[in-house]
């Protein structure tokens, strides 16, 4: 009944702005937190800067694919991650937004939105991603007037109504399951075939109030004051038709949060930060891990693994640098 989130209720702690950190992790999701854990255990001076600890775990009702955890809530898992890192006394600055990241002679300078500046020898980009939009007509007009990107938030408004779900991955399947407790009927519209896990598809097969249109594209959202329906294209027959619906939940994956480093690092056409097998970006000392990278499978366990890899690679990078130039002055 109470979802206490230490992000919001903890007061910002004094955060040392004079230190030259070994590693500053930007982002508090699974990738960032696990990188901090690994780096701290290696003895690095590491700190985490994040808007929100837990990242997208907070948007996930249930997690059932992290080995060792049979059905855990996203929030509970986030709390466990955070608690674990806290036991190592890693300084964590939350509610913090990075205004600018710039290269300096011996590392990087991070300027925060509140004006403070931080310095570090290396930086890990672990800012994750945000929900992707369909970019179709009417999507913006009817946002919050039927169009939603958060099932847990908005499902209660669709009691007894007919809603569409766009997408065919695990998030879409989970959205259908969440909505099935409220909506009168749910119609899935997906441009290709299901990508969701079989266990979720088996669950969908038990729902009586579900219709699925695969190989079908959403073209436009219609309405007056609020959304009343959508136009879809059946890709096999090349015919369009109108679906009457009160809502549309868009669960078609995510977009990386990487605009803030666009002038520094190489990104691919999707905006993902391109990394090598050591999570290194195109800039020495600058690494990336988790959903923000060009690694194709966006999963909790993979993001945490990337965080670990990055921390280990950064440790090597720093050791190598010290050997190269043992008397180097910092900053």
């Amino acid at each position, binding site marked *: 009944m109470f979802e206490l989130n230490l992000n919001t209720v903890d007061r910002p702690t004094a955060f040392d702005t004079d230190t030259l950190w070994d590693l500053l992790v930007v982002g508090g999701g699974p990738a960032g937190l696990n990188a901090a854990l690994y780096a701290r255990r290696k003895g690095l001076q590491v700190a985490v800067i994040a808007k929100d600890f837990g990242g997208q775990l907070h948007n996930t009702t249930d997690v059932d694919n992290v080995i060792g955890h049979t059905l855990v809530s996203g929030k509970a898992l986030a709390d466990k991650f955070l608690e674990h890192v806290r036991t190592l006394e890693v300084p964590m600055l939350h*509610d913090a937004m990075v205004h600018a990241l710039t290269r300096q002679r011996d590392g990087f300078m991070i300027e925060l939105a509140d004006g403070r500046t931080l310095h570090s020898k290396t930086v890990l980009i672990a800012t994750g991603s945000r929900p992707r939009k369909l970019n179709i007509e009417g999507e913006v007009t009817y946002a919050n007037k039927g169009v*939603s990107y958060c099932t847990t938030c908005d499902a209660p408004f669709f009691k007894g109504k007919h809603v569409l779900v766009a997408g065919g991955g695990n998030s879409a399947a989970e959205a259908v399951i969440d909505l099935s407790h409220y909506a009168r009927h749910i119609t899935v519209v997906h441009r290709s075939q299901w990508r969701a896990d079989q266990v979720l598809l088996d669950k969908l097969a038990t729902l009586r109030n579900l219709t699925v249109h695969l190989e079908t594209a959403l073209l436009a959202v219609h309405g007056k004051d609020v959304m009343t329906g959508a136009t879809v294209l059946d890709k096999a027959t090349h015919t369009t038709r109108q679906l009457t619906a009160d809502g549309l939940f868009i669960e078609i994956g995510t977009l990386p949060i990487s605009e803030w480093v666009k002038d520094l690092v190489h990104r691919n056409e999707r905006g993902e930060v391109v990394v090598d097998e050591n999570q290194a970006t195109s800039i020495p000392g600058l690494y990336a891990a988790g959903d923000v990278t060009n690694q194709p499978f966006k999963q909790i366990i993979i993001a945490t693994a990337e965080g670990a890899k990055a921390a280990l690679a950064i440790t090597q990078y720093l050791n190598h640098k010290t050997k190269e130039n043992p008397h180097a002055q910092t900053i």
Partner: protein
Amino acid sequence: MPKLFNDDIAKQIETILEQLDKPVTLMLFTKSGSCPTCAETRQMLEEISALSQKINIVLKDLEQDSDLAKQYAITLSPSFVMLDAEGTYRGVKFNGIPAGHEINSFISALLEMSGLMPKFHPSVLKRIQKIDKPVNIKVFVTLSCPHCPGAVQSAHRLAMLNEHIDGEMIEAQTFNALSNQYKVSGVPKIVINDAHELVGNQPIEAFLDAIESL
């Protein structure tokens, strides 16, 4: 009634509330008869105040104390305002129970009303202080919405930092009719002076852009 806070949560909240600086008063308006979530809200505030000596509760009735309700522009029940150590209302209001995820905006407001305001960039502070016309910010929420407390927190921070601004959380399911009136079907829904709408949680700068455009 069994306790709303289990021992774990109570302990966690108690630890957080140890940070409270000055005392804070919660003035709750309920009404007799049909009043969904009134009893739960009252119980929740009572359990919270039992966790810190710095939190006081004053119980009022929307009808019997109508003058006072009017003074704080309260029309719904349950509804409560948060008063600072001097008993001053600084525009922080909650309509409906701040349970679920909304416990976070509630505890955050308690800490900030007690004097623990976070640091803002000087340019943002300057923009907040420049606002000189009455501004009302309604934030519609559901208790299962993880992004909503952030929006409520921003509205309340603006209210605490400028006497012309007041911010109110509205729990959309308890106040279903009001939500329908504002056509709420997605949260957080932020409505400024009943005219300008912001969709989703937004940085405080987006609130300021909207307020300055009024």
